[in-house]
């Protein structure tokens, strides 16, 4: 077991890699009532083309299967895992992202029992043809719900426009059609490939005693047998740096138009400190240009082109990265033009501005450490790409105006911009 101390933040992180390859992290938070635990596999919606465990050739699986599998793991022969958690006073949940599937619970009592339940239900799959069929109705309604949600359509419409080949462009839940091809055998195949402990990470945070918890986890894992770990072979999609389409307009039953400009990043590092620095630089730059304290924000707001929904965001995962800028607007074309002009006209940022933005980002990082959910989820995301959440402050502090200009040169190129709009149906 290793203890990592963060003196300035007054935090201590306990870490161990178990014999079966599982990474376990425990962050004690004495003042809190609740314990929050996530059990995450490095398997998300982008993993749709890979060599299944025990096979020799690559295989394409139906879109939405990682998310479907997430739903199905909660069902067991003798009923629903939600029932067990609630009897133990816990609330359980799960989510699937582009690159991860996380199972979690939070509870203020029976932490040991709940942790046992979490480890066991994720490691004991139970799928039947009948329950797989039944789930299709539920997920179809989840997909329909998002179909009617203009913000989701805008978000995915933008990503779809950016990518030619990369599966990040496919909706995480798939489509009603694609999920109809999912079978129990396919689920078992994905499970066998991606749910090996060596591809997973367990994070526990709350008022726990780290040594007791770690011992419990070791004992639980020692009772189970796992095959020896193997490398997972995932298909590598070739992706050009320019966007797939420049503009996409979605007509919907809405009263207010929406507009997003997508910025596709090129040369994304796949892992480590370089990646962390790249992500921090892009985040800082976009906030400098479009955040509420920027002169552009003030001007666009005064012109009535944007309102409080205006946002900037930068997402970077394994081998892709994109920025998003936009929100509700009465003039979607004019807003799209303005945003793109601001991006291409950017040439410099002063040292004083860099320092102010760093201050802002460091304060906001501290704020996010108030949330156990944020810590567990983000720590896992960083760890899967060999970075550490607790290195963020250092990465921010090391940024110079040159680093920021470099990312701007690489990403603020018109061929890498796309515009997506949701407009009222005529």
């Amino acid at each position: 077991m290793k203890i990592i101390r963060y003196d300035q933040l007054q935090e201590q992180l306990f870490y161990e890699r178990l014999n079966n390859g599982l990474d376990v992290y425990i962050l004690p938070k004495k003042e809190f009532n609740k314990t929050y635990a996530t059990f995450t596999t490095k398997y998300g919606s982008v993993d749709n083309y890979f060599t299944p465990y025990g096979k020799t050739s690559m295989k394409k699986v139906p879109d939405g299967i990682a998310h479907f599998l997430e739903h199905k793991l909660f069902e067991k022969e003798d009923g629903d895992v939600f029932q067990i958690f609630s009897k133990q006073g816990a609330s359980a949940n799960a989510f699937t992202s582009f690159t991860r599937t996380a199972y979690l619970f939070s509870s203020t009592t029976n932490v040991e029992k709940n942790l046992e339940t979490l480890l066991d239900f994720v490691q004991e799959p139970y799928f039947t043809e009948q329950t797989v069929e039944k789930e299709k109705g539920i997920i179809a309604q989840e997909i329909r719900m998002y179909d009617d949600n203009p913000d989701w359509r805008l978000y995915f419409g933008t990503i779809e426009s950016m990518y030619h080949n990369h599966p990040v462009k496919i909706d995480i839940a798939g489509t009603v059609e694609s999920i109809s091809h999912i079978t129990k055998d396919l689920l078992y195949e994905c499970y066998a490939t991606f749910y090996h402990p060596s591809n997973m990470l367990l994070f526990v945070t709350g008022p726990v005693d780290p040594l007791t918890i770690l011992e419990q986890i070791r004992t639980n894992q020692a009772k189970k047998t796992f095959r020896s770990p193997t490398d997972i072979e995932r298909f590598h999609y070739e992706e050009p740096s320019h966007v797939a389409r420049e503009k996409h307009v979605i007509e919907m039953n809405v009263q207010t138009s929406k507009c997003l400009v997508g910025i596709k990043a090129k040369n994304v590092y796949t892992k480590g400190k370089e990646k962390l620095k790249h992500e921090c630089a892009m985040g800082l730059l976009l906030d400098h240009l479009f955040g509420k304290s920027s002169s552009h924000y003030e001007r666009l707001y005064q012109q009535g082109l944007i309102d409080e929904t205006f946002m900037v965001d930068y997402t970077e995962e394994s081998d892709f990265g994109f920025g998003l800028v936009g929100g509700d607007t009465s003039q979607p074309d004019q807003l799209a033009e303005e945003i793109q002009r601001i991006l291409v006209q950017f040439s410099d940022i002063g040292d004083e501005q860099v320092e102010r933005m760093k201050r802002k980002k460091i304060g906001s990082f501290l704020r996010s450490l108030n949330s156990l959910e944020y810590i567990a989820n983000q720590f896992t995301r960083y760890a899967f790409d060999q970075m550490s959440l607790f290195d963020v402050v250092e990465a921010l502090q090391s940024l110079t105006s040159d680093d920021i200009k470099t990312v701007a040169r690489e990403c603020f190129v018109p061929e890498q911009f796309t515009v997506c709009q949701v407009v009222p149906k005529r």
Partner: protein
Amino acid sequence: MFREEVKTIGGLRLHVIPTKKYKTNTLVLKMKAPLCERDVTMRALIPYVLQNATERHPSMKALRTYLDELYGATLQVDLAKKGENHIITIRMDVANEKFLGTTSPLLREALTLFSDILFRPLTEQGEFSVAIVEQEKRALKQKIQSLFDDKMRYAQHRLIEEMYKGSPYALDVHGKLSDIDIIDAKRLYKHYEHMLKHDEIDLYIVGDVALTDVEHDVVERFPLEARSLCSTETTTLTKRTSVQEVIEKQHVKQGKLHLGYRTNTTYNDADYDALQVWNGIFGGFAHSKLFMNVREKASLAYYAASRIESHQGMMMVMAGIEPSNYERALEIIHAQAEAMRNGQFSDEEIIQTKAVIRNQLLETVDTARGMIEISYHNVIATRQRPLDEWLEAIEKVTYEDIVRIGEKIELDTIYFLTEKEGEKK
């Protein structure tokens, strides 16, 4: 649990909640007045005008740049409805300097800024800046229109509008579109002055501080005259002779089925705890009857849940379904309500639900916002109850109490937003 130190300073009630949980300090100001048609739109506009600029930071950019300098302090405003009260919330969150290696007194600086925002907005000739008011009127119009675009929120709003037609609770907290144009800077400023004199105002400070650390700073910066407070009377709905059914058609792929029930029980009532348990068994959680029967067994929906409006005596059921499944979903929902009324729930379901409610309350107070919400219930209600008493009361709820609650719950309105006929999906 949490400890709260309260002190009345003129017209301000100061609540300090000392805790070492967080790396930041949170300031939340709540202004409460009765919901009424005449004022609701002006009240919706004022906090957004205030957060634009102050005398000392006379533009959005100047104000927001100063927040960045305070290590990215945040400033947000929002509006809510608690029973028939209109609540304005202004929130700031600022890093605790002990994690930063700086000695600037960030909390005191944030308090000064907060006071500026409340008492020293940017003015021109003794009223709000016309340019800012016009800009915020435009933003408010867009906000009200965008409510229509989020179908879940829209259905919830429409159900309440139909169920409470003619009573203040039917009003949307963002006000009325048709009232925006007639508001001008002068009238708005008059109303702002009125609010500072008459609203019930609570300031919360949550973080690694005690009342004695901040009392002096607050006294200096929040000069509010004492005022007489009156609690809002909730309108009683007249009983309908039959359930009201409202069906609305739009271009949607998923139908939104929302049901409104009168619970005839609010946070003020002794059996409010039994209602919480009732709602938990019925539809509050993933182990509840609605989730198990509408979603897990019949596979009709992704979500099917119920929730109570603590201060209004209302319960709402929500489900997103295939338009063609309206009758079937309704039948299953009715059957679950009927089962509850007939006392068809087990001791196990009661124990399970109490455990989850307890967990939920304890988790709520792990966030600054949650602690404030729990404490603020006692401001809205006439009843004072610390969290440990609340938890105890939940434990004491019996099978009989829950059955008795069921006798008081009446279905009032069914609202269904569905697809236009003859459309292909």
